[in-house]
């Protein structure tokens, strides 16, 4: 863990309670005794050594147009207004081609082309491995969103964050292993950060920017001392109960969760308190002090969470009702890009500055791209045949781009990266073999990648 803030261990917290002499005598020694139950979230060794230790997974809802952002299509500019039948799953549709709405310029030393929608991210291209040949299986938001999160397009399955929590555990037992910061409700609802059949320890704990970011995180008793008294009484009675039952590890584990929860009320609170962040840092994310709206807050909190050892942080950009789904007017992409651009670039820069980009994997993706042909008057339709995503940080081949689409961005031309390949590669970057990370459920060994997926070696440093 790469941390700069002072940390208290569980023991220290318990001792601090002793200091306030609110815990009943006799309890402390029991609480300090070595834990009996093996912790299901204790850190696990990956299948093979790997650089990436944790993931920040940024998901843009609604379908970000590839040809307007990261997939430069000069010939589409030229073909503006031409009508043609377009492949890529849009069988038998005649569309008038719509040129990209923004100019492209090279970014960084590597010169990866990025449109004017993302001027800040363009500066970060030397740290980014761009994939221009992503492919999904469904043109519906719901199915494609479920697919990019779970590898399954129709049936609910564990989310990628849950799989990674299951595979690697976590290093800070006082925080969840998987946190999903989502202001609104995404397509397919909470299924996308659900543990499904994996044990509930691995569910994504939803954080909603605002007053109480995690449900029931705020102490409801007016006085901390009263809550401590309650925990003291329960602790003492629980110990009696435990002793009479021969040190049952399950009972002991449950006793411990109250201590963790007690600590979370302050530790987790502290994560969401940006008061100690410098003005420079806030500026990097494009934030004003005290601001919780916009994408800066999730990005900065994500850094603070991974800093404290959270294994997987998902940031959901937009919701099912307010997002990148511009059927009517592509110009609205500008509004969503502005919300995303500086905070995400700030996150990359901040992580790099702190040396954390070396062992943190940052992923940006969306559920599908958009059609080269016009939809409505000035919009674009859903397009799962190809789209763009990127990886940055630990273990990825930075400053490169991979794969390509045809002249107008209608279909993958070379080096297709299917959603399953994308998942296999992310697991590989974390030191896990996607074919070996399995869970027996209902008579079958399940995988994130189902029966598919190949690690894309070209994306690895």
């Amino acid at each position: 863990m790469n941390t700069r803030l002072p940390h208290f261990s569980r023991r220290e917290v318990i001792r601090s309670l002793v200091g306030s002499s609110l815990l009943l005598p006799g309890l402390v020694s029991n609480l300090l005794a070595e834990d009996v139950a093996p912790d299901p979230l204790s850190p696990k060794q990956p299948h093979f050594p790997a650089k990436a230790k944790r993931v920040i997974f940024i998901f843009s809802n609604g379908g970000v147009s590839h040809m307007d952002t990261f997939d430069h299509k000069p010939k589409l500019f030229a073909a503006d207004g031409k009508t043609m039948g377009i492949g890529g799953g849009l069988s038998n549709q005649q569309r008038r081609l719509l040129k990209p709405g923004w100019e492209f310029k090279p970014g960084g030393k590597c010169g990866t082309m990025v449109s004017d929608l993302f001027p800040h991210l363009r500066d970060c291209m030397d740290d980014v491995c761009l994939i221009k040949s992503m492919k999904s299986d469904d043109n519906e938001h719901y199915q494609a969103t479920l697919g990019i999160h779970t590898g399954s397009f129709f049936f609910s399955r564990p989310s990628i964050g849950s799989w990674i929590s299951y595979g690697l555990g976590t290093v800070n037992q006082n925080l969840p292993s998987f946190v999903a910061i989502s202001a609104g409700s995404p397509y397919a609802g909470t299924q996308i950060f659900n543990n499904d059949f994996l044990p509930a320890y691995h569910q994504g704990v939803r954080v909603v920017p605002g007053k109480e970011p995690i449900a029931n995180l705020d102490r409801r008793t007016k006085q901390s001392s009263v809550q401590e008294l309650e925990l003291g009484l329960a602790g003492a009675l629980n110990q009696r109960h435990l002793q009479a039952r021969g040190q049952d590890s399950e009972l002991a584990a449950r006793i411990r969760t109250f201590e963790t929860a007690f600590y979370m009320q302050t530790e987790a609170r502290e994560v969401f308190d940006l008061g100690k962040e410098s003005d420079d840092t806030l500026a990097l994310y494009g934030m004003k002090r005290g601001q919780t709206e916009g994408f800066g807050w999730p990005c900065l909190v994500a850094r603070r969470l991974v800093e404290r050892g959270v294994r997987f942080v998902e940031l959901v950009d937009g919701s099912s009702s307010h997002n990148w789904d511009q059927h009517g007017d592509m110009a609205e992409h500008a509004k969503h890009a502005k919300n995303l651009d500086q905070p995400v670039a700030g996150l990359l820069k901040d992580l790099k500055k702190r040396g954390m980009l070396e062992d943190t994997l940052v992923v940006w993706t969306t559920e599908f791209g958009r059609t080269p042909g016009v939809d409505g008057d000035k919009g674009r339709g859903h397009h799962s045949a190809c789209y763009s995503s990127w990886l940055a940080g630990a273990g990825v081949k930075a400053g490169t781009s991979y794969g390509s689409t045809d002249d107008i961005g209608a279909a993958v031309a070379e080096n297709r990266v299917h959603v399953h390949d994308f998942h296999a590669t992310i697991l590989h970057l974390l030191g896990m073999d996607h074919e070996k990370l399995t869970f027996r459920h209902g008579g079958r060994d399940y995988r994130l990648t189902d029966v598919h997926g190949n690690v894309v070696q070209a994306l690895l440093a």
Partner: protein
Amino acid sequence: MNRSRLALLGLSACLLAPGFSSRVLAADAVFLRALNLNGPALEIDGRKWEGSNAAKLVVSGKVFENQAVALKPTTDPARARMIRSSVWGSKVDVSVGGLPSAECQIVVYVWEDNHTEQFDLLVNDKPVVEKLHSGAGGSWKRLGPWRATPVDGTVKVSARTPSHGAVNLSGIEIWTGEGTIPGVTSAAFVTELTADHAAFFESKVRPVLVEHCYECHSSTAKKLKGGLMLDSRAGIIKGGDNGQVILPGQPESSMLIQSVRHADPDLAMPPKKKIPDLAIADLEAWVRMGAPDPRTENTVAAAASKSAIDWNKGRQWWSFRSLAKPSSPVVKQTRWPVSDLDRFVLARLEKEGLKPAADAEKRVLIRRATFDLTGLPPTPAEIDAFLADKSSKAFTKVVDRLLASPHYGERWGRHWLDVVRYADTAGDNSDFPIPQMRRYRDWVIHAFNRDLPYDQFIREQLAGDLLPSDNADDAKERLVATGYIANARRFGSRVDDYPQHLTIEDTIDNLGRAFLGLTVSCARCHDHKFDPIPTADYYALYGFFQSTRYPWPGIELEQKQRDLVPLVEPARRTEANSAIKAHDTEKRRLEKETQKLKDSLKDKTGDEKKSVEAKIADAEKAVKEFTAKPLPFELAYAVAEAGKAVNAAIQIKGDPAKPGDVVGRRFLTILGGQELAPDDQTSGRLHLANRLSDPANPLTARVMANRIWLHHFGKGLVPTPNDFGKQGKTPTHPELLDWLANRFIESGWSIKDLHRTIMLSRTYQLAGVRSEEATTRDPNNELLSSFPRRRLDAESLRDAMLVLGGNMDTTPAGAHPFPPQSEWKFTQHNPFKAVYDSKRRSVYLMTQRIQRHPYLAIFDGADPSASTPVRTTSTTPLQALFLLNDPFVHGQSREFANRIVASAKDEPGRIQFAYRSALGRAAERTEIEQCRSFLRNARVQLAESRTALDQLEAEAWQSMVRALLRLNEFVYVD
């Protein structure tokens, strides 16, 4: 180059440009008509083609044109124009009328504009081409000729794709006479081989197939790919999973040729290295000849008869064997057992040298039994009565009382709802609510309460609508029971190409797990990898549900419910259905009228405009009033018979776009394979239900007896209750399981009887404390030397807090407060999402598929999308946070504290009441002291933080209650 080769090449020059020659030979057929199905009249090969406006031409299909696509092979401009404008759809029908009555010959042009599709062609409803591939973008084919006799002067040409495909039909030629049509060869495999044919095959074809194809496409292949066998004539003719590979005489239309040419990257064969051009030319020539093939061995039939499933071995698996009638085992401690059940348990313990634990204390036993049967804690009065009852039948009386409680069905009904993945929403992309679903939930609860025999319980859920009933109420109940099938999950947002195969998969998946403990749906794409369930069995079951009409819950692109069933007795169903139809018609009429008025408003001004506007307002009001008027009967979210009962086609690799052989409806082969009677005109669900509930079926009773056992002991005798197959675990006590299953059947499938059998055993009444020896030698307590301690599940925990608060709402659960259907505008962008607050028991909480109920998600509630046979028991800080800070916990603590304070005047008395209510026992002296010391400290702390004096006492007690609700002793049952 031999002679035959030369001759073939000569012919090919003509074939590569179809219709190249306009020369009419004496034997040639006579051109009658040709029709450009989408476009103008034109001239091709010097013949006049009529346009799509031709007389007596009726075309159903959507029109499409894309002249930008490059055709492969290229052809003359007129033909190209005709080809590239077409009609398309998954069902295209063309009828050409005004023809002479004599037999004629039909030629059809098809083409592909983008991605290959698979289709069948029919002439006069008779299939002439099956499962043909349209090829890569730009491919076109001139298919036929097929002979057809006009019916009333009309010939019909139809194209079909398997569900949501798109085949493009461009043109039709009609010829008369017996002779050949220029440019078209007869589309048949050569049957009478000449010596030249045989020689050509042996020298040019067989070596190529052996060298380049057999590795993956023969009976000797290590792993047969694509279901294609090229090592026999039968295999060549049959083709593979992707359809026919050779269209005799037409290399351009033959997938085999397209594949070896590497024309389409997805079909390129052999995939790694293209075979030499000369070899390709040989194969083309061979196809052109009509693929003469001298091989006589039928490798396809041989492979089919040598099925991959070893049935004899399959039948040997423990769960497929008939129920054994185990004799009562001999035990040493003859005085310990009270029943055979105990003897089976004791025999195992004695064999392992372990002793059963002591009997549980009475107070422990009543708490255990009450939570077990009702999911609620015993009241202090119930505890006192039991403790005071010194008769030998005291516990029997408790069990009988609990089984008679209406709360019993709420508890055990919930166990069944877990298994059938019950939800109040559909699970489609917008998660539409199903207000009527709760009727099924209530039916389940009621079924448990009245101890509906389990075989009947099965029959009603699968075929309640097909069962005879003595009275109207029974008939209605049975209709509601089929909500079991109706509750299958819905998918997506689309209507036209709704993925019904997934809903049926969800049905079969659940049916297999719930009733048989088998993962039948694993056989959807391939034969089951571990259990003797071939893919054909999956589709044999599929037919029952393909012949069933599921209700439509509404999804994004059609947001209204339809196909629900009137909840009336069978005799009135037709009448009620007509009433629904009439209601819809009237509504549409009113809406149309309103629209008409609105349309007329455009060119109105002044007073006239005002008058129309007033009329519009009236009309809109009329629509609203009419819509608000309820039907004179309720609708059930239940299934009905589909319009037509059908057998299902196997879907190759689970892809509905790739139909294979049709399979007759029947039960699973390994369980008897009983076929639906040939004269049965129904969907056959009753047949299926009767097979599932047949006492001779070895799985049904075992699976249910195991579930009942599981919910008493926390773990099944088979630890994988939904999987009795090879991937599941074998029973820890196989003889006991069979003994229970036999008793279950003999009791007339009485679940309550099974509860009594289990609970009145000595094994159930053991203490929970384990000896050190037992802990070491049997760490998972598989041998049941003591009673396993269990955590309260989500529902019991919440319900217990409601009971303690004294504010549980026990009035009958009505409808959920869903928004009215007239306001349903749910989409995947704004899906239905709600959490309805309630003080009712948790089984009545509205449960959504896409959005987990926040409380149930934290406490390991059932998965509303997939069968949950056993709840997991996780231990997370989020659960602790809930108990620390959730408003529900604080609210219930307040209510409970009020009851405590009212229960006695003195502090010790109040503490005793709290203990007896929450923990089911009296507080010990030290505990009373601890609590009193806590209360003193709490008062001090509360006073310091300026809590108002009149609040202080209440708050101190609430604080104590919160501590009690967090105790392991409260959430665990010994």
